[in-house]
């Protein structure tokens, strides 16, 4: 068995291991991997995702167990110090010595820190590893505690610098980008597209300083500013240096491998260094006198090295490496492919620019007008995958090439079907998956949907940029096989929720049975019943009391069923404002019925452990004291959380509590495809966490900023800006439209964030519909919402006043006994259900 040592456990080093264990020869090799960082390889490309969840595990390429399962010795937190080529031995910082047959250097790169005076000061960071990020987060939190308006700068306006800019913005600091060159992303963009990108980034709050050469970093111990020249100073309290990368090539120097003049270990097209037993891959390798700072070429290098080692020598690195990229920078699409800056001698450029919408598209066409040589897209890169394929495969282009980038008129794209691509077209460049691989996984491999195809081929698991194209391919392939890809509710209805909603609305059917008989088949199920109930709730604003048996159990009993079959009770406490007298009533009721009480995440009080027959008694008392249902059990508006606002808070700009109460009361009882939560903050400190809600309002100078489609939960999402500086009336108008549009069009149990993700055109389209009324339905939506608001009725009040409804709140039909299997045990002076099993 031959021994391989891999130095470096980053994305490329990991990919090498993955490819080797997947090869037929894997049993003949024993791999040992050294990583300098304290954790297994993680997805550095999506490092900024770390902010959303702070979950390093979610970024892992593979868990530590994976290495074990594949008989790989993974040694993290241990640096390799030296290589003795004559004895084929390495020695680590912890004095471990190991011999190898093949050595693979995948040490990657480090951030380049220019020698600026004062760059060693406290508060200066690089943006490279999870540890860097954690350091930044900790420092930013300290700054914000002292000064909520703290500013941070990023040195470098390239790709990584702008990513770092987003990170800084997400930390809540005022972001500044400082770039030496006269334009952003100088390597990828031309001057005009760079300007468009700059306008866009400025519009979302980034401050951009071009043509700035930093002379020194100011401050005693910690940074307080950057000096560009006399009288030209930027006050910042934190600096992230992102001025480029340097290969981590020290080992190559120490053991005497051939090096590039400006660093990097020289490799041939087999990824071999000047020592044939030592390979270098990824950002440490200098190939064709270039360091390739992208993940796709790194993965290709890993593949070549694996093939060379297992003696499949024909697999070599191509002479020309495709450096096309597409990325989302701070929510802005940016892509460049082929030759983005083509000299006029080689062809003609077609340019489309719209500065008002921050759009720029450029394609470069050969002189004969027959082939696409490259291009740049800013603001909307939805055509990138197709254009990139046309370029890579030398496909024919339309006689009028401008059709390739002009906004599609009617009937959509000018490309035709994705199925027209040649089978060899590489769709997922990170994983080298061709169109043929994807199609045959469906036609021959038995895959039926995106999930299956990802499991089988690994397509989309790298940068994820090819996902839209893979989805299109899957849908088109399924269609060509005669399989329908229609989204339907369940086996009883061949419609999606939106279609059924429209049918119920126009046909005036009266109840579920009629809907099932008219539009469906069979006898219904737990999926379509509550869905139809939700549609009825919107179309007729009926409460769950009218058709109780099609409701989810929670809605049927107007309470949340909990483990052990008891229920919890949540009265509405609009915006979290509650009087001492109301608190006393809740306390007394809880005491009387011996309920476990807890403050919820939505600023109200939950009472647990009620038995079904107790619910009406509890509610009679609560309603007598002026409470009403909090709808905590429904797929409906829950709460509108508020901070204390201008009434008490010395920073508050508007009265957030008052407005939150108004809004919560306006939409109380509103049924929707999934639960809805709102938030109102009185200033940008955002204490109400409004951007973690389905809709959020933040007070600013001149009104409210309205954010939509955020949530906490398993997949946290920040809400995105829909409109700025609105007065109260306009907020309500836009909210009416937004909520009604969501309720009408979302799938069942789809919250606003994933709904927006799937909405064609995304937030830009939603803005058009809600703000600009592009569909001409705004008035309709407002009228429909106003109708629902007018017809609101507390369903618990309705319930306790109806003898018929009261019959439901009984455990046995044939006995007045209660359920004797319910048992509680004490916990911290209250009670809890006796545990299962």
């Amino acid at each position, binding site marked *: 068995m031959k021994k391989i040592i891999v130095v470096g456990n980053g994305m490329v080093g990991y990919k090498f291991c993955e490819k080797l264990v997947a090869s037929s020869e894997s049993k003949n090799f024993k791999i040992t991997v050294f990583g300098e960082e304290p954790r297994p390889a993680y997805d550095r490309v999506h490092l900024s995702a770390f902010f959303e969840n702070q979950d390093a595990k979610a970024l892992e390429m593979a868990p530590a167990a994976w290495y074990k399962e594949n008989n790989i010795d993974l040694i993290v937190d241990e640096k390799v110090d030296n290589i003795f080529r004559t004895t084929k031995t390495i020695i680590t910082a912890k004095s471990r010595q190991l011999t190898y047959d093949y050595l693979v250097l995948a040490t990657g790169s480090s951030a380049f820190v220019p020698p600026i005076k004062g760059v060693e000061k406290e508060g200066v960071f690089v943006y490279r590893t999870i540890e860097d990020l954690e350091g930044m987060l900790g420092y930013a939190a300290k700054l914000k505690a002292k000064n909520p308006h703290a500013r941070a700068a990023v040195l470098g306006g390239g790709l990584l610098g702008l990513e770092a800019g987003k990170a800084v913005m997400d930390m809540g600091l005022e972001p500044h980008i400082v770039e030496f060159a006269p334009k952003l992303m100088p390597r990828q963009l031309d001057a005009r597209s760079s300007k468009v990108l700059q306008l866009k980034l400025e519009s979302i709050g980034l401050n951009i300083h071009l043509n700035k050469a930093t002379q020194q970093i100011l401050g005693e111990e910690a940074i307080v500013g950057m000096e560009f020249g006399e009288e030209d100073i930027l006050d910042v309290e934190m600096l992230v240096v992102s001025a480029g990368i340097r290969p981590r090539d020290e080992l190559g120097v120490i053991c005497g491998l051939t090096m590039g003049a400006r660093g990097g270990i020289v490799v041939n097209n087999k990824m071999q260094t000047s020592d044939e037993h030592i390979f270098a891959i990824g950002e440490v390798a200098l190939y064709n006198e270039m360091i390739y700072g992208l993940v796709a070429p790194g993965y290709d290098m890993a593949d070549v090295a694996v093939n060379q080692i297992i003696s499949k020598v024909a697999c070599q690195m191509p002479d020309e490496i495709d450096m096309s990229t597409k990325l989302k920078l701070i929510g802005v699409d940016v892509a460049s492919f082929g030759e983005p800056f083509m000299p006029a001698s080689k062809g003609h450029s077609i340019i489309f620019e719209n500065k008002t919408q921050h759009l720029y598209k450029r394609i470069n066409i050969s002189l004969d007008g027959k082939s696409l040589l490259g291009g740049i897209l800013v603001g909307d890169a939805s055509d990138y995958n197709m254009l990139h394929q046309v370029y890579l495969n030398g496909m024919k282009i339309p006689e009028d090439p401008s059709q390739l980038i002009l906004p599609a008129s009617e009937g959509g794209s000018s490309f035709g079907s994705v199925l027209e691509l040649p089978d060899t077209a590489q769709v997922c460049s990170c994983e080298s998956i061709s169109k043929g691989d994807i199609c045959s996984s469906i036609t021959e491999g038995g895959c039926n949907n995106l999930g299956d195809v990802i499991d089988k081929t690994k397509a989309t698991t790298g940068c994820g940029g090819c996902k839209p194209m893979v989805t299109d391919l899957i849908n088109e392939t399924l269609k060509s096989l005669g399989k329908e890809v229609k989204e339907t509710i369940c*086996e009883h209805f061949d419609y999606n929720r939106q279609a059924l909603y429209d049918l119920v609305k126009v046909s005036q059917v009266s109840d579920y049975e009629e809907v099932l008989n008219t539009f469906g088949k069979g*006898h219904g199920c737990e999926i379509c019943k509550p869905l139809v109930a939700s549609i009825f709730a919107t179309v007729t604003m009926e409460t769950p009391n009218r058709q109780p*048996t099609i409701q989810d159990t*929670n809605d049927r009993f107007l309470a949340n069923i909990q483990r*052990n079959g008891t229920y919890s009770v949540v009265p509405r406490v609009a915006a979290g404002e509650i009087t001492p007298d109301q608190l006393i009533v809740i306390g007394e009721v809880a005491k009387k019925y011996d309920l476990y009480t807890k403050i919820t995440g939505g600023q109200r009080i939950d009472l647990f452990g009620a038995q079904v027959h107790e619910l009406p008694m509890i509610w009679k008392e609560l309603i007598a004291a002026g409470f009403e249902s909090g709808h905590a059990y429904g797929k409906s508006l829950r709460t509108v959380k508020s901070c204390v606002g201008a009434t008490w808070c010395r920073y508050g700009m508007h009265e957030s509590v008052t407005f939150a109460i108004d809004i919560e009361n306006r939409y109380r009882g509103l049924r929707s495809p999934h639960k809805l939560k709102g938030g109102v903050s009185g200033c940008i400190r955002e204490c109400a966490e409004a951007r973690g809600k389905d809709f959020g309002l933040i007070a600013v100078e001149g009104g409210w900023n309205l954010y939509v489609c955020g949530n906490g939960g398993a997949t946290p999402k920040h809400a995105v800006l829909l409109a700025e500086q609105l007065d109260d009336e306009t907020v309500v108008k836009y909210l009416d439209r937004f909520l009604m549009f969501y309720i009408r069009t979302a799938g069942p149990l789809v919250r606003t964030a994933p709904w927006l993700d799937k909405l064609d055109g995304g937030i830009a389209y939603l803005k058009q519909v809600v703000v600009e009324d592009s569909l001409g339905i705004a008035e309709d939506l407002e009228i429909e919402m106003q109708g629902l608001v007018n017809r609101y009725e507390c369903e618990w009040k309705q319930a306790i006043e109806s003898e018929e409804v009261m019959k439901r709140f009984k455990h046995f039909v*044939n006995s007045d006994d209660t359920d004797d299997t319910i048992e509680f045990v*004490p916990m911290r*002076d209250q009670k809890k259900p006796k*545990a299962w099993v």
Partner: protein
Amino acid sequence: MATIQVLQGFISLPKETYFYQPLKFKTMQEILEKYKSVSEENVNQWFKVGKTEDFPENTGACIKYKTKQIAVYNFVRTGKWYATQNLCPHKMEMVLSLGMIGDKDGIPKVACPLHKKNFSLEDGTNLAGEDLKIATYPVKIIDGNVYIGFLE
């Protein structure tokens, strides 16, 4: 006043008595073992549980027979009646009568309200093929009265 006494009773319990969950496991197992499917020809005891109008349409309701809890389903769409144990075997909760009913590929079913496990109302099998099964009981309607069949 009564509840307050109970509450005080809780607080005065010694700490070690808090940890007796295994007891429940045992008793729940025992409870589960009480429920065995009964076929119509083996019935020794037809027990009257109420009038047909006592049972809501197209859903379940719970009845008590000796120490057993039985869920009775009035499946109006097909004109059939079904009865099963009320205990969901997945997490041992007395909740099946609260579940929504319907069909899967024509097989009448109930979906547990807690985690939506689906059980056939015909033979009690789990419709996702999981190793969970509920007991079923025969139902007959005579003169507007609902009877459930038991062995004893």
